[in-house]
């Protein structure tokens, strides 16, 4: 087991967002405090913001349509931004959409700040835009994201089904940064979650300094593609 050194930790309430540059050699552990969390995350290369997380490349390079321990999160430039080094959930959704102000109002009713103060209803797109705007990015830069802790199953006809109860209280996932990665985190519900009530769940965030991936690292060696993805990330820092 790699050694880890806690840098800081905090709780991210439901419906809130956060941006952090997860430096190469650090990790972010996200813990679902009550169960049923949904944590949309999108990623950028902090030094080259036009390089961003790419759903299609992440999936096809690892021959998977769901994400779990051992998988890498790829940029559109053939590099590993982060790898999933620990996961007690087993399935995170890379193909679901995110919520918007319109979809939240339609599903749950509008709840504005004037009346509800910090219990107002937010949406992932609004929160993502607010966070990436601080880095000079705009709607043009939002392309794809992962809905951590959520499970969407695709049947043989191609229909997508939200699977309730995928994540339990105490479940966690850990992302190790292989680059200086701008991580944008939100905690709004999955748009296909059948729960009729707006009940975004809080999560605990723990930032740690971790050892560099070893030669026998599980993520590096998951498939030949990941060995080459790590080579591309490592060459970037030479």
């Amino acid at each position, binding site marked *: 087991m790699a050694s880890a050194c806690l840098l800081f930790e905090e709780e991210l309430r439901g419906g809130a967002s956060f941006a952090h540059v997860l430096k190469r050699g650090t990790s972010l552990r996200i813990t679902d405090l009550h169960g049923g969390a949904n944590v949309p995350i999108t990623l950028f290369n902090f030094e080259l913001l*036009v390089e961003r997380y790419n759903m299609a490349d992440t*999936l*096809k390079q690892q021959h*998977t349509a769901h994400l779990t321990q051992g998988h890498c999160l790829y940029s*559109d430039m053939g590099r590993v931004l982060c790898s999933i080094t620990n996961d007690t959930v087993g399935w995170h959704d890379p193909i679901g959409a995110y919520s918007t102000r319109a979809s939240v109002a339609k599903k749950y009713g509008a709840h504005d700040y004037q009346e509800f103060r910090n219990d107002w209803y937010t949406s992932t797109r609004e929160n993502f835009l607010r966070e990436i705007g601080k880095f000079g990015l705009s709607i*043009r830069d939002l392309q794809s994201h992962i809905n951590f802790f959520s499970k969407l199953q695709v049947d043989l006809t*191609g229909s997508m089904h939200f699977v309730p109860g995928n994540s339990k209280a105490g479940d966690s996932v850990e992302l190790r940064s292989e680059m200086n990665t701008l991580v944008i985190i939100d905690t709004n519900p999955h748009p296909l979650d059948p729960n009729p009530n707006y009940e975004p769940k809080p999560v605990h965030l723990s930032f740690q300094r971790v050892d560099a991936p070893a030669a026998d690292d599980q993520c590096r060696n998951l498939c030949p593609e990941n060995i080459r993805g790590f*080579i*591309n990330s490592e060459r970037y820092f030479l």
Partner: protein
Amino acid sequence: MSERTLIKSKLDAATAIHDEVLPAGEGWIHAVKKGETFRIVDLDGNQAADTLIYNLHDFSERYSALDTINSQGNIYLTTGSSLVSNLGNELMRITADTCGRHDTLGGACAAESNQVRYAIEKRYMHNCRASFMAALMSWGHEKRDITSNINFFMNVPVTPEGKLTFEDGISEAGKYVEMVATMDVAVVISNCPQLNNPCNAYNPTPVRLLIWGAHVS
């Protein structure tokens, strides 16, 4: 959508206002105005037509694979599929399809993804992102405008166990897909030059692109 329902078009190629053959490996950008109908013909079979769609008047609004598949609750595209933008608006709608299923999860090939998928040395092979870049830059746009795409005629099934596989194509020579523009759009196509993938038998081939004016039948 379990059975592939094949819907033929009533449109006659002789009445098209635009008709051209796009060779393998070439890029293309063209306006399709509201009400116009756009057809892509897989001339020789199992060719991937990697396609991006934009609001013609504001390229920050563009096709979104995730919004499209989530709005219809299904990952495959065919007749009836609404091609949805990142702002939740319909850009185009598929009105005829003799192939029956098209992919929008597999993305486009790039020099860098070829390195990961095949070998580090594959960087130098021609790829779809290069064609997308050339087409977009010719209209004053840039890399950050490249977004999720449709792979017309590609077969990329997802299994209930969450695996993603590239299967042999289900298209064949002469199959086509046709869509009507719901707003003025710009369509960008990279007629894929991929030489590493058995889907196209390592042999990229041309596609035919036709546009009919609004109010034809």
